[in-house]
């Protein structure tokens, strides 16, 4: 079998030589970052026994400890539920004005998109630290952190779904003399609802994952047990925490993919 190499030569007078500066720059940036992060193969190899030691101490997992984890695990799910719901409540009124095709003025659209970007740009853990300071230690701070970050993400995706709708039905509603509310309820919502539900389920799944670590900064959930067991060197308990977290995350994953498959 004879092979032929089929590629399109880059346009422009330089041809393949155009790639040289890009390859050179990529190598330079990666090298610089490797030095900055002290990448070291030898350190990794010499550290392997320690990782094995750590894993060894985690075994066998302390299954008896799991009984104590039921309450924090439930709390984790509760944080994710209310965090998601409040995120939706915050995102809903904003998303119509943050969609290019529905927003009445360009500056409203651009302004709201920036607000959503800022909300999304701050990590939940940082938000949780702020809310712990504001409303005290406990799961409520976690709910608020997840709601605010989630609203930024949901608002953006809700708005993008609105931008992708077929505007023909909206024309038909306008031509029939329908008002703004009717155009949204009958023209926009039926078209965006499947995408919105998908985004919400994905957000819920993410929120479960996030709320398992919120406890590390005192914002409730199973993360608190995880971090305190490690501080007490009770690694068998840590292993139990990790298993419960894995079960939570996988269950959320499975549930949301099943539900997403149901909406068509």
């Amino acid at each position, binding site marked *: 079998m004879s092979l032929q190499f089929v590629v399109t030569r880059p346009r422009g007078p330089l041809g393949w030589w155009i790639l040289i500066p890009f390859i050179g720059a990529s190598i330079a940036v990666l090298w610089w970052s490797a030095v900055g992060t002290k990448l070291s193969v030898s350190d990794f190899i010499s550290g392997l026994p320690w990782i094995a030691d750590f894993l060894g101490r985690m075994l066998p997992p302390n299954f008896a400890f799991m009984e104590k984890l039921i309450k924090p695990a439930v709390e984790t799910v509760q944080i994710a539920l209310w965090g998601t719901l409040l995120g939706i409540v915050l995102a809903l009124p904003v998303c119509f004005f943050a969609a290019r095709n529905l927003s009445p003025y360009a500056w409203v659209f651009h302004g709201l998109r920036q607000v959503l970007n800022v909300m999304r740009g701050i990590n939940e853990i940082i938000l949780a630290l702020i809310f712990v300071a504001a409303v005290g230690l406990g799961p409520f701070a976690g709910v608020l952190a997840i709601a605010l970050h989630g609203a930024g993400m949901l608002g953006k995706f809700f708005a993008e779904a609105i931008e992708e709708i077929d505007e*023909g*039905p909206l024309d*038909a509603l306008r*031509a*029939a*003399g329908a*008002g703004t*509310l009717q155009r949204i309820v*009958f023209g926009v919502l*039926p078209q965006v609802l499947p995408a919105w539900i998908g985004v919400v389920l994905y957000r819920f799944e993410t929120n479960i994952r996030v709320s398992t670590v919120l406890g590390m900064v005192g914002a409730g959930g199973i993360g608190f047990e995880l971090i305190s067991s490690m501080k007490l060197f009770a690694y068998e308990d840590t292993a139990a925490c990790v298993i419960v977290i894995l079960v939570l995350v996988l269950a959320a994953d499975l549930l949301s993919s099943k539900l997403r498959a149901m909406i068509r």
Partner: protein
Amino acid sequence: MIEIRGLAKSYGAHQALKGITLSIRPGEFVVVLGPSGAGKSTLLRCINRLATPTAGDIVVDGTPFRSSARDLRLLRRNVAMIFQQHNLVKRLSVLKNVLVGRMADLSPILSSLQLFPEADVKIARHCLEQVAMAHKADSRADALSGGEQQRVGIARALAQQPKFMLADEPVASLDPKTSRIVLSYLKKSCKESNIAVLCNLHQIDYALEFGERIVGLSAGEVVYDGPPSGVSGDVIRRIYPGLDDPNVLDAAQRLTERRRAAAESVIAAEAAEERA
């Protein structure tokens, strides 16, 4: 009676409509015939203000349109529209799509809660009967074929109980048999309710077959306005500049007579098929 006076529309330097003046009598079926890009869609969209004309007036029953929100609602209440791509809301039921035609008269809050007055639901169902789609009232719109979707589009327009109906290339994406069925339903149902129709077409044969009056549009100007019988080869050449084929007209006219008779039987057969 609807009067269009000196309607003009420009997009930048391009003049899409160069001062159109037309008046349409109640119940009249007028076909606007012209090539793609002649300004047919722009004309219709300027009449119901989906596009804002650069100049000119629309006068419905002696009342000129002023651009207030109230006038706009009134105008759109009286003037229904049918679109080339149907523009049904795909995920809603057929009945709800037809109820969209009633929206202008309904409470926004109640209708958003999916509560509709019985009388309006009755009108919607009657309009579905007029296009023989009553049996599909509960189907989702995207479960229908192209021709069926357009018949629902017609029912939605009928549900407005308008004085005037604009049909923008209603059969451009349908096959010939389906096209004829859809146009037949459009004409029949509008005759029943004495609704005047302004229907854009680019096919000469359908225009001659269904139009009671032909308005030839070319490059944004009316180049012919009269009965189908007056559409001579010369007129065709004015509407479609560069089309130099005498056979086109001959063929079109011979087909017209035959098809006018055939349409009646096709629609009867279709109705029988659906009953069975």
